[in-house]
């Protein structure tokens, strides 16, 4: 039995939530700076600790993941970052070249292509191509078998197993990070035939399959991020993509009980007590934001706000991994 099917989809993890471990493809998204990379690193650590072989794909990011995983720098070539975790910082140009080599096979042909002085800026300017080159690469790695062959039949029992049981994409920070996910669909619209379309179709089929793929949304327990997360969820659901997990990052452990908070917020306080007032107010905002997020009815994990610890250190990431 390959390990990839040892956890039946729908099984519960130790935290009582439907486990993410059976997923082959996870796309992490959320507004800029909410903790997508932090959550990605922690999730990779958590899954790897449970024995999954994980590939973390960054989308042409300022590379800070190596600091979080305690690994050597992560560049455009896949490197081993931690036990059971490989990682890569995808560069569109390089992804495209890899893809070209794979499709064209004949060296003379792809040399002619990538040495042409216009091709570079041509590719850069083709709408969606760079996004797809990265997303397509990440998807491709879900099809690789340990034997070196490939397959996109997620349910077939392979004797040798998947090279990567789970591929996690740390989505781009721009906008809602949905633009990249939308590209395969655009390709289905504009590319009537050809290899790119075929791959986009296969990838899209996987992305929409709730037992093997999903969008993990990351947010903060604050008013505006919560509002935007509701909109984001709507956008993801419109695309018919599953959302197996919401990650609320930066959760404050409450210092005050509900009534105490009420008492603090109900009065004008002297200057010496403003820090207590501010804390109570933050706790209240958090409570309201959590209530709003609860209306999404999504399985939710909570990552604590770290004050006493550098949040991007390997130790902090390992601590956060326990919550996933």
């Amino acid at each position, binding site marked *: 039995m390959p390990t990839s099917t040892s956890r039946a989809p729908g099984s519960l993890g130790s935290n009582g939530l439907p486990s993410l471990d059976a997923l082959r493809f996870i796309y992490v998204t959320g*507004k*800029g*700076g*909410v903790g997508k990379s932090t959550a990605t690193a922690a999730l990779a650590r958590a899954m790897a600790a449970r024995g999954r072989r994980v590939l973390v794909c960054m989308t042409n*990011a*300022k590379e*800070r993941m190596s600091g979080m995983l305690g690994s050597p720098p992560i560049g455009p070539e896949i490197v081993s970052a931690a036990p059971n975790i490989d990682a890569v910082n995808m560069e569109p140009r390089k992804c495209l070249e890899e893809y*070209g080599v794979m499709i*064209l096979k004949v060296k003379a*042909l*792809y040399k*002619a*292509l990538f040495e*042409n002085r*216009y*091709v570079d*800026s*041509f590719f*850069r*300017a*083709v*709408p*969606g*191509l760079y996004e797809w080159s990265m997303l397509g690469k990440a998807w491709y790695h879900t099809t690789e078998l340990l034997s070196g062959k490939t397959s996109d039949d997620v349910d077939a029992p392979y004797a040798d197993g998947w090279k990567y049981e789970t591929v996690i994409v740390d989505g781009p*920070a*721009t*906008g809602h990070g949905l*633009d990249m996910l939308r590209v395969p669909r655009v390709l289905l*619209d*504009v*590319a*009537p*035939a*050809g*290899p*790119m379309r075929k791959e986009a179709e296969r990838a899209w089929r996987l992305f929409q399959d709730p037992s093997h793929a999903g969008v993990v949304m990351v947010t903060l327990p*604050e*008013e*505006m991020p919560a*509002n935007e997360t509701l909109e984001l969820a709507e956008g993801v659901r419109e695309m018919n993509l599953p959302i197996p997990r919401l990650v609320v990052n930066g959760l404050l452990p409450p*210092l005050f009980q509900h009534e*105490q908070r009420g*008492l*603090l917020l109900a*009065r004008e*306080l*002297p*200057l*010496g*007590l*403003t*820090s*207590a*007032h*501010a*804390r109570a*107010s933050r706790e209240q*905002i958090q409570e309201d934001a959590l209530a709003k997020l609860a209306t999404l009815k999504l399985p939710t994990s909570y990552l604590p706000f770290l*004050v*006493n610890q550098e949040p991007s250190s390997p130790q902090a990431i390992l601590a956060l991994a326990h919550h996933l």
Partner: protein
Amino acid sequence: MTSPKSRKLTIPPQSHLAKLLDTKQVLLCVGCGGVGKTTTSAALALAAARAGKRVLCLTIDPAKRLANSLGLEHMTREETLVSPEIFARAGVPVDGSLTVMMLDTKRTFDEIVIRHASSQKAREAILNNKIYQYVSTSLAGTQEYMAMEKLQALREAGTYDLIVLDTPPTANALDFLDAPERMVEAIDSPAMRWFVQAFTGKSVSLGLLGKGSQLVLKAVGKITGAAFLDQLAGFIAAMNDLFGGFTERAKRVSEALRGPDVAFVLVTSPEPMAIEEINFFADRLREFAMPRDVYVVNRMHMPPAPLPGDLAGELVGCGLPADPAFQHAVQAAHHEATLLAQRDASHLERLRIDARDPTPVLRVPAFENDVHDVGALARVGEALIGHVAA
């Protein structure tokens, strides 16, 4: 509550802000995602309006509550004058005027198409093209570019003393500067001309084509599918026809950014990542010999006032519980606030300030609540001026 009268704003003439408002016609707020660009632009615009200017704030994707509190109930995309009543209700007297407008990228793009298309047919062809629909909403750089287009149009109209421009939430603040180039690349670059000519087999005279090009094109087609290239060639040709000299136009837009009347407001939070990003942006501006007019460090945790000496007594005096557990929680809150303030202050040391040409740094405290009404915007503005009305 502060009474309306006490919120009259005078900007001290020696303040950095006064200098900006006197000498500049455009303030451009840049910074990475979520640091407070929209808030800062609205606050700056309001402050200028309070000081008597006719101001337009061109915002991008403001929070609904902020838009609502400025009277943009229907999230309209038109220029909307904020009603003096709204200011009166908030107790924020405004001597000038404040107009707000939300950028709609797709609509701005559509407007350009409609204005410049040579025929009804050409216009329909573009607006209905699938690639156009994707480009006009999702292509990296489109939003930035369209913001600049809009800015240019508004400037030429000359209705305002000051335009404050918010920028879209890019991962990378630098994207903003490159937007015109990227748009040119997508529509009117030599590479695109090469492609269209090679594809349609026209104009071999350029000497770019020949066997090599055909081979390359075949290879591209193998990757993307020939039909996709077909669509793309159609799109590029239509856009080219539409924009004629798009390169020229983008150049004008991009040059306008470099005029002496444009100020860059570099917004950041005290988070190391945001500071790193704004340092990077400042370096880039320096490279271009462009001004770095002012830093705004938003959402700073300020050191809290010391706890009362007799905590239990003070708590009782305020009608609060004074049991040990509650006292402990109050102390913990104070300790945490102190820690956060220390952390922010130490992070701020990473902001690279050029000793020979120091850029002023304005700090805005983190408020307890989000900034989404006129009163709160006024307070942000006051913090920016470094002056709170007595």
